[in-house]
């Protein structure tokens, strides 16, 4: 599983950071920062899906 994060769509709702802080941080202005490069560790796949499913701006996509 890979995460595709679209910074230009992100508006800083911070839902991903709250649901999956292992996968997303936020910058000083509150926009998301993707923490993983490449494959998502298996034990974090569920959290990755949650982050994608709760982004109001559809800025996160999961590629399996």
């Amino acid at each position, binding site marked *: 599983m890979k995460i595709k994060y679209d910074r230009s769509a992100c*508006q*800083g*709702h*911070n*839902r991903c*950071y*709250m*649901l999956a802080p292992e996968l997303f941080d*936020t*910058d*000083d*202005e*509150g926009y998301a920062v993707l923490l993983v490069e490449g494959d998502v560790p298996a034990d974090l796949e569920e959290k990755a899906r*949650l982050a994608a*499913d*709760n*982004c*109001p*701006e*559809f800025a996160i996509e999961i590629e399996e």
Partner: protein
Amino acid sequence: MHDSGNDHSRPSVQNWQTDFDHQHPDYAAAAPTIWEQIRTSGCPIAHSERYGGTWLPTSHDDVAAISKDYEHFSSQGVVVTEYRPDIPAPMGYAPPITSDPPFHQIARSILLKFFSPRAIDGWEPVARDTCRRLIADIQGRIAVGDDVIDCAQSYSQHIPVMIMADMLGLPREDGDLFRRFIHNIMEQGGGGEELPYEDTIDFYLDSHVAARRANLGEDLISYLCQAEIEGMALLDEHVRGTIALLIIAGIDTTWSAIGASMWHMAQHPDHRARWINEPDVQPFALEEFLRFYAPVTMARLLAKDIEFEGCPMKAGEWTLLPFPAANRDPAFFDRADEFVMDRARNRHAAFGLGIHRCIGSNLARMELRVAMEEWMQAFPEFELADPDAVTWSTGQVRGPRQLPMRFPA
């Protein structure tokens, strides 16, 4: 908008598709039913001649599309009134909420770092302490035999006021004054009955900003006094408008979300029990409160004519952005009309969509979480003393303004 639930003077609405009035008490009482009616009528965008022409989209897709089209839908006006705002774009009265691109992003960037998740973490102990003190007062009243307590007036309304006062470095005792300003602006839009300058939020803020410029501190007003755009200090109107925005937008809204969540819990013992017994469900429950009881409807002013989904929208008309209606759209949410406490897919729009996403969303969410955590821990059992005594505000911020509760011994 606030407490205008008592305004029965507005002409009654015969047809919600062609004559809706979001400031009418009937709308406050039954908004979700009205959105559903409009959504399923064959024309999901209602129109009304009131306020000089107003549109009301009800589907998530339409609300999202309008939120993102700032070319046609200007933020220069965000509260629907009979008159049109006369403060010119791009700044508007209260930047950045009343600003359009490209100025919007400049004004927004100045504020963002104050409202990032980490910056807001620092306010959590203040919020918790505030909630605990309010709860201790309520427990004291219960102990001396007060059996019905208005929890909107005694709890939910105070939390955002006190924290905003602290952030701005203004006296907490001025909370009543803030509420009066909010009432004047939301009800009159500044363009109804002219208030003497000494009674306006502008006078209040001008005095505080002048005092702060002479004696800078660590608060947000001092920060704005020192902020710059391309090497130039912010205009006085910019500083004042931004503080006004934080007071106007940061108080009624969060008060409404906390109050509505308490109203819900008072009527759902099963949800109270689950909150306490399954703490892992709390983060999902909080987002579901925000989806189901989203307090804020924004507005836009048509900057130019557009045919939107077949509707001939004209420059100078209003469009409401009812995020709470978008949040109940069955085409976007499963079981949209049900409160699903552990909803795992919840792309709700309670804080808006697009570039104007509520800048205080992290603060509001923290206040709601702490207010509910502390409340549920102190009062696992409570109920509405009189369901008919609960009144909801009308207009663009919807939440309970009277919330009498009873506590079993």
